């Protein structure tokens, strides 16, 4: 098979909403302790999936596997249907899986455009010197934010001067910049006010409309009920529930997490 044909096939798979990322029989052991056991999960373009569970249910261990921060003890990780192995978060990022770590996502005192392009700056040659192409980075950062329906005039403003909602927008714009197909968001509305939470909800919906898969880790049941199409609940390291959210209230989901049983 030629590589062009392979790319075509991949594209075809995407449009028929075959999963971007699949987990098959994933298990994570820490010594004798089993943190995650036998988890299957499919993440599809344009879909927001909430990952829920009490503390210690195995959520963060599972997320580490998807984001490249840890290797699974058992099972396979498939990207576009092909087995993949991430050597670290940067490797995952290059393969289209971006994770937004809440507290550590941004460099607060750097400018907006510097944050959007951090680690992947645009440069141009001036004579023998390779210098930063600030004008292009600012224009492109603005364009990424526009795709999220966020308008900020001055791309040179330091991120610390922005609102919590705007900061989330910057972090998400960076994921767009990396052309991430799957964006993992860890508690994106924690510490946000009502209005800003609504803003972030908008951002996440736009991200999904833009054709990305979103994996949302959240303790906020209203977030899950409002945003997710599907909810995955873990208990004792196992996936106990994987169902559509439609028709469920926040209270229903909370009840399911506590009991580990579908209603």
């Amino acid at each position, binding site marked *: 098979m030629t590589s062009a044909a392979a790319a075509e096939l991949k594209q075809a798979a995407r449009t028929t909403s075959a999963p971007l990322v699949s987990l098959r029989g994933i298990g994570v052991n820490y010594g004798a302790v089993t943190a995650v056991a036998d988890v299957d999960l499919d993440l599809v373009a344009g879909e927001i999936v909430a990952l829920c569970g009490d503390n210690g249910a195995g959520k963060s261990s599972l997320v580490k596997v998807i984001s490249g921060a840890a290797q699974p003890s058992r099972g396979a990780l498939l990207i576009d249907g092909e087995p993949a192995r991430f050597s670290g*978060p*940067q490797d995952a*990022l290059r393969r289209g899986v971006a994770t937004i*770590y809440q507290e*550590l*996502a*941004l*460099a*607060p*005192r*750097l400018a907006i455009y*510097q944050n959007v392009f*951090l*680690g*992947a*700056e645009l*440069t141009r040659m001036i004579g023998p*010197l*390779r*210098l*930063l192409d600030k004008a292009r980075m600012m224009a492109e950062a603005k364009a990424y934010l526009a795709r999220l329906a966020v308008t900020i005039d001055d791309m040179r403003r330091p991120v610390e001067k922005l609102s919590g909602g705007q900061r989330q927008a910057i972090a998400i714009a*960076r994921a767009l910049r990396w052309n991430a197909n799957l964006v993992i968001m860890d508690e994106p509305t924690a510490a946000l006010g009502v209005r800003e939470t609504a803003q972030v909800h908008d951002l996440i919906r736009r991200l999904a409309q833009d054709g990305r898969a979103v994996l949302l880790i959240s303790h906020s049941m209203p977030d899950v009920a409002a945003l997710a199409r599907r909810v995955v609940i873990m208990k004792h390291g196992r996936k106990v529930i994987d169902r559509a959210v439609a028709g469920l209230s926040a209270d229903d989901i909370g009840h399911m997490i506590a009991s580990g049983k579908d209603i």
Partner: protein
Amino acid sequence: MGRILERYGTALAGLALIVFFAAAAPNFLNPANLLNIGKETSFLAILALGFMLALIAGELDLSIADVASLAAVACGALVQWGYGPLAGVAAALGVGLAAGLFNGFAVTILHVPSLIATLGLAAIAKGLGFMLTQGVAFVGRWPTEFTGLARGALLGVPNLILWLIAVSALVWLLVGATRTGLHMTAAGEATEAARLAGVKTDRMKRLGLALCGLLAGATAMLLASSLSSAAPGMAGDYFLYAIAAVLLGMTMFDPGRPNAPGTLVAALSLKVLGNGLVLMGAPYYAQDIALGAIIIASVAVSAAALKRAAFKV
């Protein structure tokens, strides 16, 4: 208006200082005196720019002055023992760079906080300086090729000022216009975020400390050349002044962040202050009091970066 004051307030105060001394201090505006101030600024500013580069990468280098003294005596030793000016230049820059590399190794590989690691190296450098000289300065027969490095002039502009312009331009370009400079800044400002974004943060910290050492070596070379002598501890006096220049520089142009133009203007202001006080016949301790006040006030105003670097021990 408020923004202009915030960004350029201290620079304007420096300008006001110059106007004040021009009016009040006899002979301040004498071209020979202004040239002297420029030359004296060059040593301080080059050393301070090095300290600034380490600080930008989030590390404190408290060894700069003792490393510069050691680099000067290493340079003096080779020149006096007849190995020629080129060997002297190589020794000064080499000792500085080696010290910077050592600091980077201690901080990023041995995980010793820079505050401690560089303080340790400072003591080692001081000891080596005395070991090499037995406390006696290298004076006397310095070849003119070597003394010309600092004492000469090109088209009427003293070499020292040319050195200063060259170093400042390179540092300014590195920090403000290159990917490496931005990565150094990110490594210093938000180490974890930068690392997660794929920035090689440890390498950036090593680079900052190495360049800091290299510039300490360059300062040593120019000091030895200008004074045609090299003595252990000869640069010790610059320690506090260099730090003060960087801190004061952080109150202007890009408030709260170490920056090259600020450091430059601050170094010049400190030297203007010192020179002006002497010309006005102020008592000798006035300078120390002013220096201390400037350091504390600068940090109080905007040295959050320094606080972070100092207290992450």
